[in-house]
């Protein structure tokens, strides 16, 4: 057991209430009131009276050799307690999710602008910042490698990395780091005839810019040195145990001495899968013997986490004159930036699902992830599927136009359904209502046109209250898109979660405590955990314990997987607890176990109602279980074939967009979404995920981009990295379908990512219809529409 250490204010507490809500109900969140009132403590609210503040000195250059670092001037600043460089990292100098290629602090070379070089701890953040500015780093500045295709095209020239990085347990088995070039991973998908020909062929090239997760709570945490020589880290993150593994390696400490607790997380979307300040704060705390808090400001946050991979893609679709897809060939290039992060897995997704939810007999896809000196890219909601969806859905529209077919008809004709083969040789073995999702959208009424001229309400116009049009130049377009996405971790990864469930009577009231390490990042897993426990144990009062490493790994809060996998683990642990309680009751009453159930705080049967207090007395029944979904397999490295994905989620969107064709400004009038969720555990939260995912997809389609030139970020702030406001994100029509997946707990499907994937492509389709322009790059800018 850990040595008890003082806990900071702002550390998480047990969440209870608000009571009620089983699987399938609109359950209220236990953290909802706190958040709405502004009382919820986020990572940036952590506080200890004697804490120091840590700051990071980052590289101003995208690519440079470090000739020397002189920390003397910083150490001389009064109030400074420590200045650390890579020399002070006691364990492994590098870390990473899949390849341990990223230095904890730069070693000899910096490979992207913003790479951490040194750390300072001081008694005031301003003092720490001033001291950091006095660290003298002598750089020999090199020409950065900034184009993914060029980086791959010159295997012996300008290598971003000199040495091969060790792979981690998370690495894709088929991921090979090219020993002599900038290739992180190449996925090949080969199905059918590589030279197939067709009557009608459309070719397109597409580009997707770099999106940021733009979570509102910047990277924050507090490291507290413990009496056993270890460290307690309170941190806002997505996967405590994968952080723990990497921190232990860097600190050279066993897991018992590195204990993590989830601090309040203000959004994640993939941006917290990689480490940010985790090791840094621990190093400073262990070095100074004082608690150390690190909290990035907005600008630093843009340099402190990975972004969504920019993509360049070339697609060729061949079809018969009747509109049956004959072949798809695609080359997809993803810019992974300076370090691998989750690039191998993103390449896996983009490659295997890169042609969309369509049945195609002949598929030839090459998907590459490259190292460059651009900002590192990794996980973000939709994970490789977002980029390709812009391309394959634009291709479907282009093909429909070429065939003179309705774009929805063409999609339905080629839509995947249960039993369909995928390009990777899997058979879709649960409902896949792609055509139904589209048809339902088509059947929805279209929104009316707004009033124009003197009666115009500016909020309904492209440009909004900026008063750029009263209807002049405005044309409406309607576009459809459909997407699918793997749920949970793929390609043979041992994807599991652990749940500890305890049932006892507290103050006369039966109480369940659910303890998992599954990160609540705002999505509502804490509610789902409560609902499952209430449903399985018939007890209303369910307490969610703080998320920490005192219990086994829950896996990542990503890949739309936690309701499925941690939900599955909680369900299984509840079942084990229930079995023991019913056995006790059977022993007490003499009733056969098979006749007994748990209901409303009692053991019941026909003519029996035995309160749990009588069954349990002062005892607690506790079970801890590891739960895994059915196994997947690695992809064949030459053909990309294999049972790689455990489940697919499907969503479709219809976008209605008014375009001021003269000014290139937009008003998305309505977004409609249909999604199959298998089973809506918390319907209200499902709708929230669909709305949020849709908004984030819309953002990428029309405004969100980290602008990088020569390896430098030009807009690291919310002044110029724009995300949609309430006047940009319209009201939605949403239909949630529930076709159970027989392999999943309650039949549920992961929800969070699918709506993020189809939303943007639908918006693009609508803009293309309104303007008649090909618009092959996202985000679409006014310049693209006005061609200025």
């Amino acid at each position, binding site marked *: 057991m850990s040595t008890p250490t003082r806990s900071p204010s702002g550390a998480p507490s047990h969440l209870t209430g608000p009571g009620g809500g089983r699987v399938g109900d609109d359950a209220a969140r236990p953290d909802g009131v706190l958040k709405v009132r502004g009382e919820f403590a986020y990572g940036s609210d952590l506080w200890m009276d004697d804490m120091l503040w840590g700051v990071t000195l980052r590289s101003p250059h995208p690519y440079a050799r470090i000739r020397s670092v002189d920390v003397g001037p910083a150490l001389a600043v009064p109030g400074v307690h420590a200045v650390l460089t890579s020399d002070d990292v006691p364990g492994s100098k590098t870390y990473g999710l899949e390849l341990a290629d990223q230095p904890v602090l730069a070693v000899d070379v910096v490979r992207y602008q913003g790479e951490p070089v040194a750390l300072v701890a001081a008694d005031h953040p301003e003092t720490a910042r001033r001291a950091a500015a006095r660290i003298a780093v002598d750089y020999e500045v090199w020409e950065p490698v900034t184009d993914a295709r060029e980086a791959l095209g010159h295997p012996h020239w300008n290598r971003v990395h000199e040495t091969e990085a060790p792979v981690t347990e998370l690495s894709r088995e088929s991921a090979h780091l090219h020993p002599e070039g900038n290739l992180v991973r190449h996925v090949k998908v080969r199905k059918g005839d590589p030279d197939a020909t067709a009557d009608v062929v459309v070719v397109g090239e597409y580009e997707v810019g770099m999106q940021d997760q733009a979570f509102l709570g910047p990277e924050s945490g507090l490291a507290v040195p413990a009496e056993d020589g270890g460290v307690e880290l309170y941190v806002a993150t997505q996967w405590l145990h994968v952080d723990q593994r990497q921190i232990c390696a860097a600190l050279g400490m066993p897991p018992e001495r590195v204990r993590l607790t989830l601090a309040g997380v203000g959004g994640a979307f993939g941006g917290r899968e990689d480490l940010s300040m985790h090791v840094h704060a621990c190093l400073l705390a262990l070095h100074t013997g004082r608690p150390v808090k690190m909290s990035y400001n907005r600008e630093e946050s843009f340099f402190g986490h990975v972004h969504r991979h920019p993509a360049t893609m070339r697609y060729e679709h061949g079809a018969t004159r009747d509109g049956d897809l004959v072949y798809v060939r695609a080359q997809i290039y993803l810019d992974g930036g300076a370090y691998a992060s989750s690039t191998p897995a993103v390449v896996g997704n983009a490659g295997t699902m890169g042609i969309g939810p369509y049945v195609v007999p002949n598929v030839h896809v090459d998907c590459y992830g490259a190292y460059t000196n651009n900002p590192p890219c990794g996980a973000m909601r939709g994970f490789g599927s977002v980029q390709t969806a812009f391309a394959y859905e634009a291709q479907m529209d282009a093909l429909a136009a070429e065939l003179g077919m309705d774009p929805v008809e063409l999609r339905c004709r080629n839509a995947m359904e249960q039993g369909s083969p995928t390009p990777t040789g899997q058979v879709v073995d649960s409902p896949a209502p792609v055509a139904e999702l589209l048809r339902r959208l088509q059947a929805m009424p279209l929104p009316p046109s707004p009033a124009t001229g003197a009666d115009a309400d500016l909020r309904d116009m492209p440009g909004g*209250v900026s008063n750029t049009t009263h209807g002049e130049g405005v044309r409406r377009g309607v576009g459809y898109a459909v997407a699918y996405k793997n749920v949970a971790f793929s390609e043979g990864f041992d994807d599991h979660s652990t749940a500890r469930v305890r049932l006892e009577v507290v103050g006369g009231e039966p109480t369940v405590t659910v303890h998992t390490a599954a990160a609540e990042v705002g999505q509502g897993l804490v509610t789902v955990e409560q609902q499952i426990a209430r449903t399985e144990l018939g007890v209303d009062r369910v307490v969610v314990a703080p998320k920490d490493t005192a219990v086994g790994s829950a896996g990542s809060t990503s890949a739309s997987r936690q309701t499925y996998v941690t939900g599955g683990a909680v369900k299984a642990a509840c079942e084990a607890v229930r079995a023991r309680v019913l056995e006790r009751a059977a022993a007490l009453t003499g009733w056969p176990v098979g006749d007994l159930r748990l209901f409303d705080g009692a053991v019941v049967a026909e003519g029996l109602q035995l309160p749990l207090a009588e069954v349990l007395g002062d005892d607690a029944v506790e079970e801890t279980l590891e739960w895994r979904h059915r196994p997947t397999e690695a992809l064949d490295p030459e053909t990309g074939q294999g049972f790689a994905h455990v489940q697919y989620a499907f969503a479709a969107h219809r976008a209605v967009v008014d375009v001021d064709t003269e000014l290139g400004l937009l008003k998305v009038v309505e977004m409609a979404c249909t999604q199959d969720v298998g089973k809506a555990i918390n319907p209200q939260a499902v709708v929230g995920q669909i709305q949020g995912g849709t908004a984030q997809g819309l953002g990428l389609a029309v405004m969100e981009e980290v602008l990088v030139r020569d390896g430098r970020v030009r*807009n690291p702030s919310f*002044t110029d990295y724009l995300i949609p406001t309430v006047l940009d994100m319209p009201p939605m029509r949403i239909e949630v379908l529930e076709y159970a997946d027989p392999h999943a707990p309650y039949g549920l499907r992961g929800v969070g990512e699918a709506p993020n994937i189809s939303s943007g492509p639908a918006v693009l389709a609508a803009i293309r219809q309104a303007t008649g322009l090909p618009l092959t790059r996202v985000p679409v800018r006014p310049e693209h529409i006005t061609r200025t």
Partner: protein
Amino acid sequence: MEFLQPTTWEEAVETKAAHPDAVPIAGGTDVMVAVNFGRLRPARLLDLTRVPDLQQWDTEDGVVRLGAGVPYARVIGELGDRLPGLAMAARTIGSPQIRNRGTVGGNLATASPAGDAHPALLAADAEVEVASVRGTRRIPVADFYTGVKRSALADDELVAAVRITPPSGPQQYSKIGTRNAMVIAVAAFGLALHPDRRAVGTGIGSAAPTPRRAPAAEEFLAGELDGLWDSRAELPPATAARFGELVAGAAAPIDDVRGTARYRVHALSVMARRTLTWAWAEYRKGETRCA
């Protein structure tokens, strides 16, 4: 850091004279952003929010004197009829929170080429009233902007007010941003028709190192309207188009993260044409506004 909080205008002006390095703070919506980004570490802040004179507006000889510290929300709520162009510009600024705090005085002193008050003030021929212990002077707004984020304000001076003659004709304001609210202008245009003087006022934002007028466009349009003020006849589309071109011709934009120079020029021509069309339609309906 020293925090200076004068409670009267005299005290404010004297404090500024005693500490020319003191950074005035009104709504703080520019100052605090600079502080939070570490770009500004003032030795002294001069808080102007307790100076009652700055928070007021009144009318003198038909001219509105708008205190430098009146927030945008009040410009919209209280002066929409007297200062329609400025109120329209204010409506495009930031979010409700920013409009509750941000002030015209702050916008002027920041003198960003993207500040939204400027094109409206230029079109309306406003004057900036600045003051120091040395006295008060009135600067025609067109002379106030001297460079990128530079103004005619001396180190010991404060902005006291802006003076704007309420319009004798329609005013319009139009701004391009790449989202539909809370956005810094990619380009902006302010227009005022002055039937009493048979003149036209213009203001261009975000398309030159400073906010500026488009004099050739103003002259051209005043000439074209010469015969039309009284007849209130329809405006030939070619006139509006030519006006748009001349406005665009007055710009000297750059490419930056927010937009390309070419787009800015194009957008200005469209905004100028459209706003003129709206303003003239309003004028033809006889909806001239009188002070």
